[in-house]
């Protein structure tokens, strides 16, 4: 029982990190309907800046710098690459992001080299013990951060025109322009925000229980795909719910793999995709996504 509780808690906390990554996908998709494969590299960028700076300027400033840095990279990608694309096909832009990802990841991994970089976070490997279950403080922090950020975004989207502008721009650039939406600025903003989010996510991906930032850290972004999808690619709430679902699924599948051997071992990162498929079969646009409409 406590095992279950512990796995569940662990899953939730892990899920909150995925939620942060997924939120990055969501923001960009909302604004541009592009599935951003370069998100992994944004993660790496944010983490890298934080990691190299924390020694000199302290953790919190370094984190800010990381957020700013990743936001800058994101903005640069939008400004230098995405904006240049004249076509209207979003899935083509997805391929561009793959190219961008190759470039950025190669550069960053070259800089990181064989090192494992610590980010010098204040939590260290401290754990909270609730009853008989323990949870790393870093993960509590992650949970809180995810909660706060996502609520913040919900509010922003509800109470400012930014969300409307984003969705308008995504649905029809021309008509959005006719409404006075500054297309460039909207997608630039989205990319910058996604970058910042990535940096925060990167922080929680590199602190305890993982040893630190190194070249393969970015692979975690893959896990946010099912999260973003099963929540609904254009839904902030979806990102949270999806992230948690994936986290819990993964944690349980791992923790009980000895009891699931008939499925073969190492279900950890397969399980989320299976759950995703099942959910998509019931709700083709994810749990909170906007449905495709059939009207002529």
């Amino acid at each position, binding site marked *: 029982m406590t095992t279950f509780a512990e796995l569940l808690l662990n899953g939730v906390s892990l899920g909150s990190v995925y939620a942060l990554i997924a939120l990055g996908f969501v923001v960009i998709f909302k604004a541009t309907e592009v599935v951003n494969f370069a998100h992994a590299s944004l993660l790496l960028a944010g983490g890298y800046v934080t990691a190299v700076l924390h020694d000199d300027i302290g953790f919190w400033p370094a984190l800010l710098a990381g957020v700013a840095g990743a936001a800058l990279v994101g903005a640069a990608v939008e400004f230098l690459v995405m904006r240049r694309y004249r076509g209207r096909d979003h899935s083509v832009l997805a391929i561009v992001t793959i190219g961008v990802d190759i470039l950025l990841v190669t550069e960053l991994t070259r800089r990181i080299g064989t090192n494992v970089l610590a980010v010098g976070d204040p939590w260290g490997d401290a754990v909270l013990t609730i009853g008989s279950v323990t949870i790393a403080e870093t993960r509590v922090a992650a949970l809180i951060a995810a909660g706060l950020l996502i609520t913040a975004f919900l509010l922003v989207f509800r109470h400012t025109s930014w969300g*409307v502008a984003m969705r308008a721009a995504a649905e029809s650039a021309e008509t959005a322009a006719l409404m006075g939406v500054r297309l460039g600025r909207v997608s630039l903003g989205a990319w910058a925000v996604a970058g910042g989010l990535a940096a925060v996510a990167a922080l929680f991906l590199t602190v305890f229980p993982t040893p630190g930032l190194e070249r393969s850290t970015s692979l975690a972004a893959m896990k946010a795909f099912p999260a973003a999808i099963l929540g609904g690619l254009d839904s902030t709430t979806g990102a949270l719910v999806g992230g948690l679902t994936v986290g819990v699924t993964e944690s349980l599948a791992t923790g009980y793999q000895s009891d699931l051997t008939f499925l073969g071992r190492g279900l950890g990162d397969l399980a989320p995709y299976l759950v995703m498929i099942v959910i998509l079969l019931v709700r083709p646009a994810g749990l909170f996504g906007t449905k495709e409409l059939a009207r002529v």
Partner: protein
Amino acid sequence: MGGAALAVRDLVAGYGPVSALRDVSIDVPDGAVVTVLGGNGAGKSTLLRAISRTLSFHGGAMTGGSVTLDGRPLDGRGADRVVAAGVSQVPEGRQVFARMTVEDNLRAGALGARGPRTAKAAALRRVHELFPVLAERARQQAGLLSGGEQQMLAVGRALMASPRLLLLDEPSLGLAPLMAARIGDTIREINGQGTSVLLVEQNAALALRLATHAYVLEVGEVTLSGPAAELAASDEVRRRYLGVVDETAADDASRATAAHPVLSRWEDSR
């Protein structure tokens, strides 16, 4: 909210190889309603796209001439700047944001408006009393509205920006007579409050009644222009745009069918 004077001079525009407009000059005096008549492919929508700087979205471009609003050039700016200058447009074929709710469509319409929140609230109220259905369906996805309801939404959306110059591309498209008439009244009302209007409308009768001045555009060139009343009187306009014909509908139709190659039946020999 005053109006603005639009001046289009020697406008040349086209889509890659296709030339759509040649040396078109049009004036919309401050506070006037001006209408542009023209058949399919005459270039009316192209004209409006050129003014609102959205040709590029159709692979087209403005290759000559100038467009000025109150003497300040509009060309060479982004579409958003044109809106910021107080121009808002009802695009051809509605173009509502299908996946957004009616409510959000209207909010989107207000994005370009500079006025205070209260102004927007007022605008919303006006749109709602104009088109009650939009209030009833506030939370419905716009794409699910009926054609005419979408048209109402498109018009309402444009009004949300409380523009100084309103560009209308066939606002009565797909509207029932009653509703078309109401649109007419609305245009008159807005204009009454000072907004200048450039109206592209196939319902020429309606258009000519609203407009003070009218232009006739044919295959990319202005062929006729003058006070609306005069044009309304000219045979050309009466026949082509007001559809006034001497013969009775019946033998007119028969004449037309005779004129048309009769479509032979398709006998399925397989």
